[in-house]
Every structure is written in C-alpha cells, then in structure tokens.
C-alpha cells in the first residue's frame, strides 16, 4: 500500500445538519465538526454504528450534500470554506468553487449495486454515459475502446457491455459500479459500504480488485464499512465515528491493538471473531442503552450517556480531538491528564 506524504484531501470542522420541517433548531446534527486529512494514495477507513454519519460525511465531502460549515480542501484548493466562529456557529457566507472539474476527480461507489445502476441501460451505456459527461473520449472508437478496457480492468468480459444490470450477480454489478467510477479517471473515491451486500466469497474478490486499482492508478480512498476486519485490512488509517463526531483516528493495526477511546474499545470488543477458541476466552464490553438521536444529541461528550467512565465534566464540556501519540488522535477527557 504505497503512500506518498502529500495531502490530497483535508477537511476542517466539517459540519452537516439536515433541517427538519416544522421544528426549530439545527435539525439532525448528522456530522459534527469533523477534521482529518487523507494522503495521496492512501486509504482512510471510516467505521461506526448505523446512523453515526458515515454516508453523510462521505457525500458532504463530495458536495453531493451542501455542507453546513467548516472547510474542504482538495489538492491544495479550498472547494468549500465556511469557518466556524468561537461560538461554534459558521461565520458567514460560504465560499465555494465551480465543482465541475472536481466532480470528475472525486467519485463514489455505492453500497447497493443493483439500486445504483439504471436497469434500462446496458452496462456499456452506463459506463459510456460517465465518459460522455466529462467528454473524455476523442471519438466513437476511442469511447468503445475505453469501455472495453474498463470492463477488463474490473474482471468482466468485453461482451458484457451489451447486457443489462439484472443479468449480473451482485458481485458483478458492483464491478460495473466500480468501472463506472473509474471511467472518468478519478483521483479520489468514496467507497460507501462497497462490499456489504455481497457474499463473503465475493467480498474478497472486490476488495482485492479495489486494492489493485489503487496501486495501478494511484487512487485515494475513503472506505466506509461496518465490517471492522475488512476495514483494518484495506485501510492505512481508520477513523471511528460516534453520533456525528470523529472520536478516534489512528494507523489501522495500531488502532486495533491499542484503541484509546472508550467507544472504540467497546466497538472492537463487540466484533465477533471467526475463531471459536479465541471467542470463548474474549471479554466483551457490553454497552447499556441505545444510540441517542442526532436531533437531540447529548451535551458535552456525545458518548457520555453510554460511556462506562463518564464524569460530570463529560456532560458539560466537549472533549477536544487531539493527537495523543504520533499519528493517534482521539477526543476524550480521560486522555487529557
């Protein structure tokens, strides 16, 4: 997993709220002031429970959702800027750029392969459409060649170009989705649960293919998934989200060996391990209660209602996300001593 030390994408205090009709206040606080950077050629994994804001964060970075505040810097250029003031409110009117060139550079692969492909279009048309939007083919022949080349690259046959999505298995449909994303020669891809809908035996095929594409094309990934073992495998670093906030970030094997945030510790202890002897001896940290609603998140540390170590301070003050060991970040008052 080659990694250059150049930063391709950086987000600072990125925030996304969804207003709720008929209700005053900020609405659904889906992404709460998240900051991180991704090196060129790197894979950053993003994990956390359902509804914690992973998809929203991925889409907000691509500006498929308009951010509520913070900034997004792509390859040195701020593509969105609306810094937060001392009161935590965005300062003023957002500055942004024409997204068209970035739409090509930044792509997304979706969780549900069948729902993300138009059933009335052939696979060739689906891939061709992406090429046309960004005018990436010089001629008809060039376009056809590109389509064939892409199909081969993702492990499909060139004859597959004339078939419709429903004629493919889930794993093959996901390959089509990947071919479509690659058609526009992107640099950065948000992979939103790209393998969750696939059989175990097919998941590893797609993971390997994503890795091969990354090496060959120098791609940078934000890899969102539930399955921590796959995320650890594919990512250089992993970020852990809880209720809209990033609570921990670190090198992936280091984070697995040595999680420092109480929520990460819980999450890791809950992952069932495919090893019967190990699983008999493992101690689980079982959390009480449900994840609170992002419409009305707890004050202070958002994890305090379920954290076994919570103190009065945790209810009052939001812990700062900072670097505790080189490259290992977390937001927890316990670590501040």
């Amino acid at each position, binding site marked *: 997993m080659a990694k250059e030390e150049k930063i391709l994408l950086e987000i600072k205090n990125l925030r996304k709220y969804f207003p709720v009709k008929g209700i005053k206040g900020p609405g659904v606080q889906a992404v709460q002031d998240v900051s991180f950077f991704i090196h060129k050629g790197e894979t950053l994994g993003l994990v956390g429970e359902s509804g914690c804001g992973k998809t929203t964060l991925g889409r907000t970075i691509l500006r498929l959702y308009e951010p509520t505040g913070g900034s997004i810097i792509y390859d040195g250029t701020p593509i969105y800027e609306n810094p937060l003031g001392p009161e935590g409110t965005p300062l003023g009117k957002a500055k942004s750029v024409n997204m068209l060139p970035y739409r090509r550079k930044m792509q997304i692969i979706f969780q549900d392969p069948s729902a993300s492909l138009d059933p009335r279009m052939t696979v060739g048309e689906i891939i061709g459409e992406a090429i046309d939007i960004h005018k990436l083919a010089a001629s008809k022949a060039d376009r056809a060649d590109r389509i064939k080349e892409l199909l081969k690259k993702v492990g499909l046959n060139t004859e597959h170009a004339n078939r419709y999505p429903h004629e493919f298995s*889930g794993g093959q449909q996901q390959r089509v989705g990947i071919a479509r994303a690659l058609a526009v020669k992107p640099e950065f891809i948000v992979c939103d649960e790209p393998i969750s809908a696939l059989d*175990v035996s097919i998941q590893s095929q797609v993971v390997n293919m994503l890795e091969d594409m990354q090496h060959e094309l120098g791609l940078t990934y934000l890899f969102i998934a539930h399955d921590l*073992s796959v995320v650890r495998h594919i990512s250089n670093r992993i970020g852990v989200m809880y209720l809209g906030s990033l609570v921990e970030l670190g090198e992936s094997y280091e984070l697995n060996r040595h999680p420092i945030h109480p929520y990460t510790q819980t999450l890791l202890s*809950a992952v069932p391990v495919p*090893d019967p002897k190990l*699983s008999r001896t493992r101690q*689980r940290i079982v959390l009480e209660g449900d994840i609170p609603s992002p419409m009305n998140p707890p004050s202070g540390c958002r994890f305090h209602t379920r954290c076994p170590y919570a103190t009065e301070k945790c209810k009052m003050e939001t812990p700062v996300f900072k670097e505790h060991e080189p490259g290992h970040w977390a937001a927890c008052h316990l670590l501040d001593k």
Partner: protein
Amino acid sequence: MSEQNTEKKLLEVKDLRVSFFTPAGEVKAVGGISYDLNYGEVMGVVGESGSGKSQEAYSIMGLLQSPGKVIGGSITFEGQDVLAFSKEEMTSFRGSKVAMIFQNPMTCLNPVYTIGNQLVEALRAHDKTISKADAEKRAMEMMEMVGINNVEKRMKQYPHEFSGGMRQRVMIAMGLICHPQLLIADEPTTALDVTIQAQILELMKEIQKKTKMGIIFITHNLGVVADICDKVSVMYAGKIVEQGPVDDIFYEPAHPYTMGLLRSMPRVDAESYERLIPIEGTPVDMLNPPEGCPFAPRCEKCMKICLKKMPPYVEVGPNHRSACWLRVQEQMNKEEN
C-alpha cells in the same frame, strides 16, 4: 456451549428436498439435506446467498411459499413426523414448540397492533392460563432483556415507530417469550450493529443455557458462528457440503468451499497487511446447476470425476463429514494401506 443434555435428539432431518416449480424450470432449492439437532445444541448454517438456508428453515415451520414444495425426505421433531401434521397441528406446533426469527422483521409484525399487544398475544396463545397482567409483565421483562429502553412507553407503540434494529429486537423477544424448544433464527443479527449484536448473542446464550432449547442459527457471519454455535452445516447450492463440530470446521475444514471461505476473510490475528485469497468465480445459477459437485466450477482442486458425479459423504472425524471426492480418495487410499 453446553455440555449438559446434548445427547437427546430434538430434531432429525433426513434427505429433505425442496423444489420451486417456476415457468423457467425446477429450482432444486434444497437438494437432499440431513442433520440431527439435540436439546441444548446450537447449529450454525452458513453458505452463499441462495444456497437454500431459508427455504430449509421454512420447511420445518411449514411456511414454504408456493411455488415451493417439499418433494422428499422427512422432518422428525421429538419423534413426531412434522411433514404429516394437519393444519391445526402445524399451527399449534408453531405456537408452542418452535419459533422463528425472520430475516426481515417487518413481514411478521402486524402494523395495526401495538408492539405490547403482539407480544402479549403471542404469549397468551401459547399459555392459555396466564393472566393479562402477568403476560404484560413478562412482555416488558422480555423487551428489557433485548435491550429496549422505556418499555412502558414502547409497549404502546406501533411497529413503524421502531427503528429497524429495534424491530429486529422485538422479533427476537417474540421468538423467545414462549420458551420454544426449537428456535430457528434466520440472520437475526445481520441488520444490527455489532454492539447490539453482542447484546443479543449474550442474551440468546443465557436463555439457551436455562431452557435447553435447540437453536438453528442461519448466518453469513463466521464470527457469529464461532461465538454461538456448537456445530456447523456449510451449505452450497442446496446441499450440505460439510458438517461438523464448530472447532473442526474452523481448524480442520475438510471441504474446499469451507477452506475457501475461511481463507478469504482477513485473519483476526493479522499483525500487518496480508493479501486476501478469494474464491474465484461466481455463485451457482440454481436454474442450471452444474452436474456433479456444485462447487466444481470454482474449485481449484476439481478433478474429472467432480464434473460428473456428486461426491458422497465421508466421515473425516467424529460427527464430521464432508462431501468431496478428495476425501473419498483419501479414504480409499487409507483402506488400501
């Protein structure tokens, strides 16, 4: 899990065959499977999507949907012939002896009744003597046990007011409330977050220990299998290709499909990056299954005979059998020496 009371037979399935007669032809969804389940035993069923796991379970419950039909074999529960049950006998069997937790909870919760009402009715259908107040108390206890807060309020709510994960927990509560002797759980935790999944698995183990119920646990997740199962059936294209005690399946797999599955997952103890080894190829088209061994088109070890004849079972260890020509050969070699 439990050493006690695992000798007595609760369920015996013999050469069960289920087919769907569709306009395009016969789909042999379950192609002759056999197993025993003892009191207090947990059997995991793993396998690719479409391999027949759910249809097999539906046949025990008498819930096969047309055009699906049991076309052969037998199901014996505590000495009784389940396939010969009249409609009334089947209904009472389902109400009192077996319970099923379905893959999709919405299909079996009634949208027009409150959650409390449905739990109480399930209980009273089973135990005609229980008073309404006692039934309500039990229902609330059960809801608390599956990790639902605010039970008094929750009892009065309707299914649509619950999140997907909570509905699944209600389903689990419904399955467990009547203390069935056999619980069939079809992907009961797949839609849940790992922390909730951990809670539910602990709960199922606890109840199972107390009541000695047998559990058939259908899942894709080999981590869950390692955690809760005593033995495992591995299905591929409507057949059980390998069956054995959980430790044998994980540490001494005897079928290339099982080996492939285990190898294709990231290792738990990996300290650094290791490339995954996928099972190549695509799942079987059940309308046109291959002749001979169904795994042959994807098997690295495939021999000539594999393409012609389905391999018979070979005992490779105590209670451990595999349907693979390699094992047949090994056995023949052993007998020669």
